[in-house]
């Protein structure tokens, strides 16, 4: 019984370690201006150790989708980049 709880605790800690790695990866991608340096670096050793071959591809896909603004927001696919951009009407000189 104690072994089960120990395995459960270890599992939770390892999962949180992995998630923490993926979120820091996403943060670095945003900081780098989504230039692809993080998303395309699928097979780096550190990343493979953290999330493995499949997980690394999933993480890259997540970062790329977020970069392209493919986020479900109010049921409509909206572009985060488009939201951040100022509309031409607002940019026009008064």
């Amino acid at each position, binding site marked *: 019984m104690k072994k089960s709880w120990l*395995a459960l605790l270890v599992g939770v800690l*390892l999962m949180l*370690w992995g*998630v923490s790695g993926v979120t820091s990866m996403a943060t670095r991608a945003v900081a780098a201006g989504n230039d692809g340096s993080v998303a395309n670096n699928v097979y780096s050793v550190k990343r493979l150790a953290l999330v*493995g071959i499949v997980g690394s591809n999933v993480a890259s896909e997540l970062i790329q989708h977020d970069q392209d603004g493919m986020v479900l927001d109010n*049921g409509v696919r909206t572009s985060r980049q488009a939201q951040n951009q100022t509309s031409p009407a607002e940019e026009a000189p008064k």
Partner: protein
Amino acid sequence: MSVLRQKLSDSLPTSNKTVHALIMMAMLLFLAFGITGLGVFALMYSLSTMSAGNDSATSHGISSMSSSRLGGVAIVMSFLLLLIGIIVLSPSTLGAAVNAIFLPAWSTVFVCVILGASEDFKADLLSPFVRLAAKLLAFGIFFWITPGVVPDAIGVPLLDGLFASPVLAWAICTLFCVGFINAFNMADGANGLVPGIATIAFGILFLEYGGPIEGALFFVCLIFLIFNVLSGWFFLGDAGSYGLGAALACYGLQGVAQGDFSAGFMASLLSYPCVDFLVSIVRRAREGDSPIRPDNGHLHNWLYGFYAPIFISRVVSNSLAGLTISLCSSGVCLLIYLSGWLPVESNTWFGVFALQTALYLVVRSRLKNTKSVESPDTGLGHFDLT
């Protein structure tokens, strides 16, 4: 033949076989999913060894070892941990969380998970009628408060007339979802069958939407699939089949209502549970049996009967039966999707669904006719209409 097979299977001590299987799974999961995958594996292993949700060896016709029905609980725990980790550790928030459908949809899925988990922890804790009523109520309320999930049309002329009426559309969607969850539960009778279908479905949803929720579900379902197929002692249980079925039903209807997918695409993706459910109901009605009585007349039982004389290990036969069906049904849909032969919005997918149904009927009839070596009385299927 069966005595020899049993002797060969038992030639290794169970503890040694278990340790070998665990090491193999841990190595495979580390390669595929790294430390995070090992974390999910440890969580699943710990739940599989707990006495709660344990099935004794004698209760399974196919399995010669004790098994656990807490696979669904493990999937839910892993999924929630991943999501909570993303929310807490990430500076950004989930895009889907601001969606008006998010909370009602996941609350409905959660109700279904609780209903299933109650059955996994203590059989017959809730009567079949109470479970059925609870599911009808949960989905009825969900569709009532979020009418945007109910499609206006599904591309079938006769049914589109019914969907024109909001009340009829609400009633059809509620009944469909409850029926689909039960179909998913009924199909959960072989290793890798329902987990395989769910993994493929969430993989496609992840490729389409690219959100962390779909990513986490795909990630966890794939790890469970590997654990389930290789171990043969850790099953999805009612919590898993109800929960995954409810999540896929919600995603499917929302996708169809928003025009992201055609109804034909979703039917093709989830063809096996739907067709097997309908065929089983018709078969039992024709035989004069109760439609809610569990039996071993499903295609996966017949396929297991076909594989069993060929392979020494029962787990291999069981897993091969499940994987064959999931790959030949949802796998075909995945192949067409990845190759881009058909757009997901196309109604031509109804044709693919018709071909899958025909294939099901042909294979079923062939396996039934060639039944000779081993009885398909595997004890694999557990039909539970509620």
